[in-house]
C-alpha cells in the first residue's frame, strides 16, 4: 500500500493535472462564453504552459520550492480571476510543506487544506456560489475523510476527484454570486461553472498522473 510521496510523485500528479486541463481548454473557454468573457480556457492554457516550464526546470528535491515557484508563476501570468485564485492555492500549499521531503496522506491532505485556506483569503465565495469553490471544497473534504479513514493515497485521490466532479456538476443548478457571471443572475442557471470544471479536471489529473506512472 502506497503511503508516501516524494517530489517525483508530486510532479507526476501535477503533470497529470496539466495534461487534462490542456486537453480540455477549448471546453473551458466555451463554458466561460456562456456566462463570462470566454477566456477561461486560454488563461488555463497559459497557466499550464508556464507551470510545465517551471516543473521541467526544477532540479532540487525541495518540495516547498517547487510549489512556491509554481504558485508565483500562476500569480505572475495575466490570469484574470484565475491567476490570483489558483496562484494563492499553490503558494498556500507550499507554505505547509516547509522542510518536508516526503508527504504521507496526512501531510498531503494538510497541504491541500493549506492551499484552500490561502485561497479563502482571496475570496468570500462559499460552496453554493457557483465558483471553483464548489469543486474544491468537497474535493479537499474527501481527502480529509480518506486520510482519517487511513485509506491508501490513490484511493483517496480517486475519491477527491469524484467529489470535485460532483461539485462541478452541481454548479449547473446554481446562480452565480461571484466573478463576472454574477451579473447575469438567473441566466447562469443551466450552465456549468468554468472554474469549478478546471478544478475537477485538475483532481482527475492528479489521480491519473499518479496512477498511470505508478502502474508502470
Amino acid at each position, binding site marked *: 500500500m502506497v503511503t508516501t510521496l516524494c517530489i517525483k510523485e508530486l510532479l507526476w500528479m501535477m503533470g497529470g493535472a496539466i495534461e487534462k486541463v490542456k486537453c480540455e481548454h477549448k471546453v473551458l473557454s466555451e463554458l466561460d*462564453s456562456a456566462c463570462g468573457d*470566454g477566456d477561461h480556457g486560454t488563461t488555463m492554457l497559459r497557466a499550464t504552459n508556464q507551470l510545465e516550464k517551471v516543473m521541467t526546470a526544477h532540479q532540487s528535491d525541495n518540495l516547498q520550492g517547487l510549489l512556491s515557484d509554481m504558485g508565483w508563476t500562476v500569480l505572475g501570468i*495575466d490570469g*484574470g*480571476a484565475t*491567476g490570483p485564485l489558483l496562484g494563492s492555492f499553490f503558494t498556500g500549499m507550499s507554505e505547509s510543506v516547509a522542510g518536508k521531503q516526503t508527504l504521507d496522506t496526512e501531510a498531503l491532505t494538510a497541504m491541500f487544506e493549506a492551499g484552500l485556506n490561502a485561497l479563502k483569503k*482571496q475570496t468570500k465565495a462559499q460552496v453554493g456560489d457557483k465558483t471553483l469553490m464548489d469543486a474544491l471544497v468537497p474535493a479537499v473534504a474527501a481527502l480529509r475523510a480518506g486520510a482519517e479513514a487511513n485509506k491508501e493515497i490513490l484511493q483517496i485521490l480517486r475519491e477527491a476527484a469524484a467529489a470535485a466532479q460532483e461539485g462541478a456538476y452541481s454548479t449547473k443548478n446554481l446562480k452565480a454570486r461571484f466573478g463576472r457571471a454574477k451579473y447575469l443572475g438567473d441566466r447562469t442557471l443551466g450552465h456549468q461553472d468554468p472554474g469549478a470544471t478546471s478544478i475537477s479536471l485538475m483532481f482527475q489529473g492528479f489521480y491519473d498522473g499518479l496512477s498511470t506512472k505508478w502502474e508502470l
Partner: protein
Amino acid sequence: MPMKKFINKPENVVKELLEGYTLAYPDKVRLAGNNLVVRAIPKVMGKVGIVTLGGSGHEPGLSGFVGEGMLDVSVPGEIFAAPGAPRCLEAIRLADRGAGVLFVVLNHAGDVLSANMTMELAKKQGLKVKMILTHEDISSGDRDHPEDRRGLVGFFPVYKVSGAAAEAGASLDEVLAIADRMERNMRTLAVAVKTATHPSTGEAIFTLGDDEMEIGMGQHGEAGTGRMKLKTADKTAEIMLAQLLEDLEVRQGEELLVILNGAGATTLMELFIVFRRVSQILAQKKIKMARSLVGEYITTQEQAGFQMHIARMDPDLLSLWDAPCDTPYFVVR
C-alpha cells in the same frame, strides 16, 4: 469564416500591440520591465505616482493615458484578463518617486483579486501605496451594494483628477481623497447593439437579436439586465440619462461632467446625436453641463454601443479636470 482582424498569431497580440503603441509614441511612453507602459520621461522625485492595471483589448484604455498629468505606469494584462500581482508590484516600485503611489483599480473580479494580492505584497515590502476601486456602473448592483458595481469608463476622470493633483504636488492622502471624491460622484451606464470578436478565439463575445439592444452591458460583453427592442438615439439617451440622474441624485443647478464613450464600432456621428439629446434634457432640467467629452476612451474590440457617464463636479474637481496633460490619447493644453 476567418477572423477579419489585422493580427498575426493570436497569442502574440498583446506583446505586439504594446510594441507598436510605444513605437508610435516614443516621445510620450515606453515599455519598461515586464511589459509595463511607463512615461518616456518619469515624473520628478517627490510627487505621488499613479498606477493602474487591466486587461488588454480595450485600446486606448488603459495604457493610452500614461503621460504627464495622468498615469505614471499602466500594467496591461492579456486580452480581457487582469495582469498578475508580481507585475503590478513592479509597476508600483517604478512609479514610486518617494511620495507614494495611488493604485487605481476597476472593479472586476480578476483585477480586484490581483490588486488585493499586490497590496498585501506591497505592505509586506514596506511600500507606500493606497488603492482606489472604481465601481460606477449602476446596472450591476443597486445603491446599497456599491461593491457589486463594475468599473467602466469612470476610470478616466479618476486618472485625470488624481493625476493632476499628483502633478500639483499633493500628498498621497490628498490624491486619494480627490480620487475618492471623483469616484463617489460619478455614474456610468452602458448599452450594446452589436457584439465583438474575441481576438484570441475568433468567437463572438455575446449574442443579441437583429432588432435588439442591451442596456447595462458590461465591458467584456457580460450581459446586463435591460435587453429590449432597438430604440432611436433620442429614446436611448432618455432612458439611460434618467437612470443615471436618479442614481446620482442630481439636482437642479448642479454641474456635471458628461462623457460618451464609444464601444468600438459605434460612430462619433451617432454619439453626437445621442449627446445632443442629453444636452437638451439637462438644459430642460436646469442642470449645467460643465464639461463634456465624446470619443473612444475604452473600447471592446468592434462592439457597437456606448457608455454614458455623468459626474457631479465641484470647483476643485473642475480645475483638476482642466489642468494640462499630455498623454498619447488625451491632451489638454
